[in-house]
């Protein structure tokens, strides 16, 4: 029984009486009982299926015949599959461009809201609203209508002297449309940025202003470093989310990733392979590659974070 040695300095000096130990164990049990809904969810709905899909990734399985072990074949076939490569390309463009744009928008609006203007509460809610409804199917449908021929975007842009024509049917314009849709839902990172901005000590700004630093300079040299943990957190979260975009692409392209494969996001192709073509083995392999890549990117981000994330109170 090692419990006694593990106790920290604040623990009572005398070992616990047997009765107390029993009470503690009972308490633990109650704790686990309360955790049960989560534990069931985790083991049955997450861990179990994940392990199953890990196995299926090495098999040929179409739901109808028993899974047949094929080793690494699914993984090697990915590299020869032009649609797979297309989906990787589409997703990477979306992540690499969409995420920074979205974060920049969130930070910009957070800075505006933090400047002490009137009616802040209202604006904060107004800017957050798209995020509340953003993930829903209905917004994707509205988006599609807005960007169609003679939709509002087409009308306004044509009025401003742009080329007429909707974006939905043009393979070159669907990606900007998807990125705009994501950017528009900047509410969640914005709120986190706003909370972070409130933590930046006013004295630093005042001191710098006294020394003659302009607004831009103060932003780069005070706000950004002080905010870097929050930026890091948002960047991590939004990158992971961006890799997994599905619902909006599914709705806007009618579930097929078109036009001309321009919205064939990774998860959408995974879904099509798994549930339209019943290639569960192949889809599982795709899912694991995605999980590994996201894991790897997260690890790299954590590793490099030492170089640019500044935690206040930390001595370097």
């Amino acid at each position, binding site marked *: 029984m090692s419990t006694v040695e593990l106790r920290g300095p604040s623990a009572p000096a005398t070992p616990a009486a047997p009765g107390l130990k029993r009470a503690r164990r009972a308490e633990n049990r109650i704790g686990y009982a309360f955790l049960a809904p989560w*534990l069931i969810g985790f083991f049955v709905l997450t861990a179990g299926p994940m392990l199953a899909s890990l196995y299926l990734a090495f098999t040929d399985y179409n*739901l*109808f015949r028993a899974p047949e072990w094929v080793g690494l074949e699914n993984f090697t076939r990915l590299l020869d599959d032009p649609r797979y490569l297309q989906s990787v390309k589409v997703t990477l463009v979306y992540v690499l461009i969409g995420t920074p744009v979205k974060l920049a928008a969130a930070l910009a609006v957070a800075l505006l809201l933090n400047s002490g203007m009137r009616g802040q509460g209202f604006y904060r809610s107004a800017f957050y609203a798209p995020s509340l409804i953003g993930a829903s199917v209905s917004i994707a449908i509205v988006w599609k209508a807005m960007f169609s021929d003679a939709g509002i975007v087409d009308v306004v842009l044509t009025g401003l002297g742009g080329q007429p024509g909707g974006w939905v049917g043009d393979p070159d314009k669907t990606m900007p449309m998807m990125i705009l849709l994501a950017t528009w839902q900047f509410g969640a990172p914005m709120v986190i940025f706003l909370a972070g901005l409130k933590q930046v000590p006013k004295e630093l700004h005042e001191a710098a202003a006294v020394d003659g630093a302009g607004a831009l300079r103060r932003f780069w040299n005070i706000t950004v470093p002080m905010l870097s943990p929050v930026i890091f957190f948002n960047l991590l979260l939004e990158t992971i989310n961006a890799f997994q975009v599905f619902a909006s692409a599914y709705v806007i392209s009618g579930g097929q990733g*078109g036009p001309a494969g321009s919205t064939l996001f990774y998860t959408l192709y995974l879904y099509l392979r798994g549930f339209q073509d019943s290639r569960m083995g192949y889809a599982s392999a795709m899912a694991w590659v995605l999980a590994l890549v996201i894991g790897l990117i997260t690890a790299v981000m954590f590793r490099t974070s030492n170089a640019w994330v500044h935690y206040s109170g930390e001595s370097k």
Partner: protein
Amino acid sequence: MKNRPVLTIAATLCAGVLGLTACGGGDAGGEAAAEGPVTLDYTWWGSQDRADRMTKAIAAFEAAHPDIKINPNFTDYDGYWQKRATEVAGGGLPDVMQFDISYLRQYADRGALLDLEEVADTLDTSGIAETLMPSGQIDEATYGVPISTNALGLFYNPAIVEQAGVAAPTGDMTWDQFDAWIAEVSAKAPEGVFGSGDYTGTFWLFDMHLRQQGKQAITEDGQVGFTKAELKQWWESTAELRANGSLVSAERTTQLLPKSPFGAGESATEFSWDNFLAGYLTDSGAAKLEIVAPPSDGDEKGLFQKASMVYSIGAGTEDPEAAAEFVDFMVNDPEVGQIFGTSRGIPASKTQRDGTTFEGADAQIVAYEESIAGELGESPAPLAIGFGTAESAFKRITEDINYGRTSVDDAVEEWFAEAESALQQ
């Protein structure tokens, strides 16, 4: 030591959950065995409109067979197959199912469907045409009974044709004549209205085109039934129309979804299954749409009736006789025919067809199928596994050609690679 409670709890939970799933898996088609009325699980895909009609048909059946209760369930088409796939993996298909010939083979291969020869005494198929029965048959066994049929046709919108001031298309054009007609309409019709969309993306139409030459797009044993050169020729047949803007553009077609250019009134013609008529009328708001036989370069029209859907019985049903009784009623009873009209296609069974009075669009479809009755070949057998993937790839790749993203040569290679890997499964 400290970990033990976690393990115990996890183990208990798993056991409990396993118990639950076991219960869940076991009771499919359950209550049937007990005395009293038999209950059959029955499922179909379709709209609310179909569900309303189905409720009426089920009520009629239950009134005629008080000893059998039907437990109905329906979803949309995509969700339907996901659900069936999960059920077949878990071993609990419903007793009676509406089925599509593109899925029949997978389920039959797995032994999940009842061979309907076993209940032939109860389930009467004598009213169904001989040429149609292969739709549900695989290797001498019958896994599906055709409910209704449809056939390919060339739809046209007389209002647009008249506005363009050209002669209406007829059922005996050659492909070249038809292509020339498209160009003429596109030139003369108002801006934004065309003679046709790019019809070469419809896989069934290509199949029909091949049947005109005595071939078939995909054979029953899952082989591609044409050469790369033939596919190239097919896709190039509209190259000129594509190049000079005589077809509805890919951009526009994508934007119009879920309507088709024809449904949206921007195309004078479209090839489709004849039971699309009602939908086209609703979409376009046109007072009248016509159907004629598609073009052919020879005497052979390549036309066939396709079972638009079939009934199948789950192999695990507790009461095959009761299930057969229900299917027999749904396929043959004239009252059921009256309830559905042609909303599922034309009733396959003669008894049901004769007992139904067709009006309006329904009558038009029946008249069309009668007009081509002499041209019909044998109906396609249950489609090879992978057919659906090959078909959707065909559509997608044609779209890529129209977007100018790929050349016809590359497209041919891409389709063959995709189709061959899908058909191998």
